[in-house]
């Protein structure tokens, strides 16, 4: 136990100031975000992530948003296991035919008002997998989408910015 505590103190806070070029923009959006989250979401924006057929690359970066360097919880962003508690769905992948029904059910289970973000080149357009017998392509082909975050995969910073911008627009 002492070792664990020692390591925690030794590590300190590693959450980093974001790279200069986006810091100004993020600070501005972050300020709106805090306001928005306080007013509209009682201080916490709850997200349900849905992998609708991705290669798992996008999930790696969504998980990385939670790591101590990006630490998305400091903005009030939390991930939930149930769509019934969610304000926002973060959907990755080209939507596979085999996930279509599950995605629609998850969408229906999310209470209104809800926001849907299509993540990654695949979520935005179908990416390299395109549309086929097995892939329905973009998330917007299956459920209504409010915002897109392209990238293969989008980095944690791009994800944060995309989410913050959507909220700013919605306010």
């Amino acid at each position: 136990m002492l070792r664990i505590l020692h390591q925690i103190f030794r590590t300190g806070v590693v959450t980093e100031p974001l790279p200069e070029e986006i810091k100004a923009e993020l600070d501005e959006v972050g300020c709106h975000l805090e306001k928005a989250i306080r007013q509209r979401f009682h201080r916490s924006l709850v997200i349900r992530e849905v992998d609708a057929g991705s290669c798992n690359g996008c999930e790696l970066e969504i998980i990385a948003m939670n790591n101590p360097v990006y630490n998305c919880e400091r903005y009030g962003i939390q991930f939930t296991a149930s769509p019934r508690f969610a304000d926002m769905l973060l959907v990755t992948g080209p939507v596979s035919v085999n996930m279509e029904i599950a995605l629609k059910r998850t969408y229906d289970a999310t209470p209104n008002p809800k926001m849907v973000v299509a993540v990654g080149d695949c979520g935005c357009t179908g990416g390299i997998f395109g549309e086929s017998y097995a892939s329905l392509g973009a998330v917007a082909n299956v459920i209504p989408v409010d915002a897109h975050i392209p990238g293969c995969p989008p980095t944690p910073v791009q994800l944060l910015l995309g989410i913050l911008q959507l909220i700013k627009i919605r306010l």
Partner: protein
Amino acid sequence: MSATVNSLRDIILSHFGSSAVLCSGTYPPCIPQILVPREQFEDVGWLMKDAGARLAAEWGVDETLLGRQFAVLACFAREGEYILLRCNIPLEDPTFPSLSKKHTPAFRFERQIMSLMGLTPTGHSHSDLRPWIKHEDWPADAWPLRKSFDAAQRMPRVAGEYRWVRAEGEGVYEIPVGPVHAGIIEPGHFRFQAMGEDILNLEERLGYTHKGIEKRFEQLSWVEGARLAGRVSGDSTVAHALTYCRALETLSGTNIAPRAAWLRAIMLERERIANHLGDIGAIANDVGFAFFQFQFMRLKEHLLRGNQQLFGHRYLMDRVVPGGISADLQADGAAAIELELANLQTEFEHLVTIYDLNASLDDRLRSTGLLTAETARELGTVGYVARASGQGLDCRIQAPFSPYDQIQPRMVVLNSCDVHARAWVRIEEIRDSIRLLRGLLATLPHGEILIPLADVPPDSSSLAAVEGWRGEIVYWLQSGLQGEINRCAIRDPSSVNWLALEQAVHNNIVPDFPVCNKSFNQSYSGNDL
């Protein structure tokens, strides 16, 4: 007992005599492809079993555009020796003798061949011919891997029901989970039969992320194919792209520059370290130690940022390309990696000490999720799953390609067969990969990184196997009459290792399933294709 071990090829040729035909146009020459009569295909099953070979992969191919009919190919491996056995199948009778009686992995391979290629195994063990990957709401006669199937079509949904394995009795209950899981992970469905806290049976049903990848390859150029291979399983982008490129370069006779080979190995080892770091943290987190999760995630993040700085992408996507690599290490890159490795090693060893001395972790991880050595062998498992259960399998060592023939990796084999072993194999492999990276940097050749891809000959095929961080990945490529992609068959480690998870959770308590699953951490996308 004779001291000489016959090669797999000799065993087949001496058994079949003149009825076996050595195929031409198959590469590399050290991996022969042998045609045997369809009626006797089952013989190869027991012959290979007796020889101690495992069934690494089995797939179907539609050769109608090559002026032939269907075929089924089985790839067997014994240490570093690979062999392909095929039987031809007429269009009017699309059946083949099953290998599942002797080789358990055939169980799912053949269900998949039947579901996607429409070739029916006869004498399949348990007569389990339920569709696999193909869900029950697809039309029964939709066989996407056949050339006659239009890849662009929208299939109608039909009524159908999946027949689950059932357990009955007083106090037995069922827990269905998924496809949308609680965490930020890929989709799949697990069905548990449990009594009290104990898991009696687990049945997996996958296929949710099936995106038609193998069919998609057939519409792409060879160069575009490398991008797709790098997206079969995002966490293994280097390993998959590398296996594809190695098969393609063998097929076309392209000899990449030494510097490219070295840098590919550097990328592959970086991918191994990054994923292992994440997994060790996640395993500890699943038994209540969020501390380790955040500490290991931090180390992983540093490595990803290093990738971005050194090669321009956090996961190194599209860095391995046909003919070499697309991003060179800059002059100051080697020094940067040295520094990074020194920091990583200090921090990592510090955490490993805390991990090792933690009695609660030890208590939760030891003897949890046992996969006996016998089961691991029987199921044909690969990668750290196999090595944590006493199986000495690593194709970097057993079937090395440059530079692994010069920089020998250390085989890490443990025998406790539990979650602890699967975590500890990763710890040892991180240590060894750090050592390998240093050796690779010290011997890094100068020169070119990319050469043009030579032409692919028509109607030829090649096989490549690469040890990714999760285990052995196998690609088989076949060209058409114009030298285009006729077939790309992929076997991710997950296609065999998923079966082992079902066995490892027997008699564990339901709350330990997440940590058992984490210790396997298999890919859904790589399995579903």
